[in-house]
């Protein structure tokens, strides 16, 4: 699904990702933990196809890849519902019953049901991230890249949403960048642990303990 081979990224003469290699097979769900400034967000940008300035190779066989960035990235002039359906609209995907059912479930889980007609400026940071998450999942991705998407949410919301992803999207391949250790076992099965202040070949791939209901 995703293959990173000898990836190196340098910014202003400083190597922030050094000879990184790993593979994600279909259906694998992996967390990535590393110190702040180690290049995690840079990696997500590269894997998203937004940053081409690197050496090494990134191979991808995903049919549909989406990224949840650190910032929710909602259009300020669109309502929550319009933001959520935006990717479907620009890709010419018609709203099927299945999508609408998924939408209703997501709106209930995230507590956004009453805020569908709100503009982003009327939402809290956590609600904006929730809307971005619904938008990402409704596109029907088989690979999802997440860069700290839960950081503005309270614990109860985080847990509820992660349980929904785990139960509703068991086949999805997922790479989650996070600092929260409690998130990792709830939504992913493995962890890439980087101890140095840099993403490099020096990391451990650890199995995570199962969480109830996992």
């Amino acid at each position, binding site marked *: 699904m995703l293959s990173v081979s000898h990836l190196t990224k340098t910014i202003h003469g400083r190597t922030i990702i050094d000879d990184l290699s790993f593979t994600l097979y279909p259906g694998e769900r992996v967390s990535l933990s590393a110190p702040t400034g180690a290049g995690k967000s840079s990696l997500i940008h590269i894997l*998203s196809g*937004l940053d081409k300035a690197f050496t090494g190779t990134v191979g991808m066989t995903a049919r549909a*890849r*989406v990224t949840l960035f650190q910032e929710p*990235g909602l259009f300020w*002039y669109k309502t929550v519902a319009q933001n959520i359906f*935006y990717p479907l609209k*620009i890709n010419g995907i018609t709203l099927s019953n299945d999508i609408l059912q998924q939408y209703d479930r997501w709106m209930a889980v995230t507590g956004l049901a009453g805020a569908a007609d709100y*503009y982003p400026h009327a939402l809290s940071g956590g609600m904006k991230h929730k809307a971005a998450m619904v938008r990402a999942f409704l*596109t029907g991705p088989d690979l999802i890249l997440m860069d700290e998407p839960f950081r503005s949410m309270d614990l109860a919301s985080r847990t509820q949403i992660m349980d929904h992803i785990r139960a509703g999207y068991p086949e999805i391949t997922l790479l989650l960048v996070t600092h929260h250790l409690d998130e990792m076992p709830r939504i992913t099965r493995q962890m890439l642990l980087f101890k140095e202040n840099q993403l490099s070949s020096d990391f451990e791939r650890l199995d995570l303990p199962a969480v109830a209901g996992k």
Partner: protein
Amino acid sequence: MKHLMLFFKPVQNSLAAFFLFMGIWFLLSLFFDPYIVPPPAAVIKNLDSLCNGVFMENLGISLGRILTGFGVSLVLGTAIGIVSFTLHITATVETLLVLFQVIPGLILGIVFLLMFGVGSAAPVCLIVTLSTPFIAINTANTLMKRNPVLEGVIRSFNGGFFHLLTDLYLPSLVPALKTNATQGLVMALKIVLLGEFIASDNGIGYLLNAAKIYFNMEAVFFYLLVVLLLMLCFQVVLNSLFVIFFQKYLYPD
């Protein structure tokens, strides 16, 4: 009340300027003879005779020039701003446009008078020449303040340049368009007065000049009052149009 504030908040400075002008005028009238600074009450009392057919005709001529010059400037300035951003030549274009901005309007007015003679062409050209650079530079600079997060979102959902343009760049231009329209119209009003003052035989600027020559200070103050009221009206009308049609594109306070 909230909706009322949406309309009037942006014009509160102009309203304040209007009342400040009235206050200063009133104070000055206490210290000067009425034939130099007539009191506001005297001018208001003579409104009937000042608002005559000649005035209305010249007001219409000035408004026509203002709206023509402003319309051309807005379209031209916005187009130049978008093109210079798209072609990555904003810095070069800005340098060229600033050259136009540093030329005093009076000199340009005389040049246009010599080129086009007395009439509407000189004031309209003056508006276009002096307002377009401001609008173009403001447009280009707004487009250069990129939103990398939303660009990333659009591109990550397979959106191309068309989507970037229609869903991000053009909507983010609306606040700048509002500033351009408001400031551009006020600039157009000031410039047309200057143009008519030096290069026309009609319009409010011409009437102002004539009133000054004949030392008709009641008329002079009346025309100044009209100019201030016009500015206020322009701002209220433009603000209303943006609130009604483009409110969602304006960044929330």
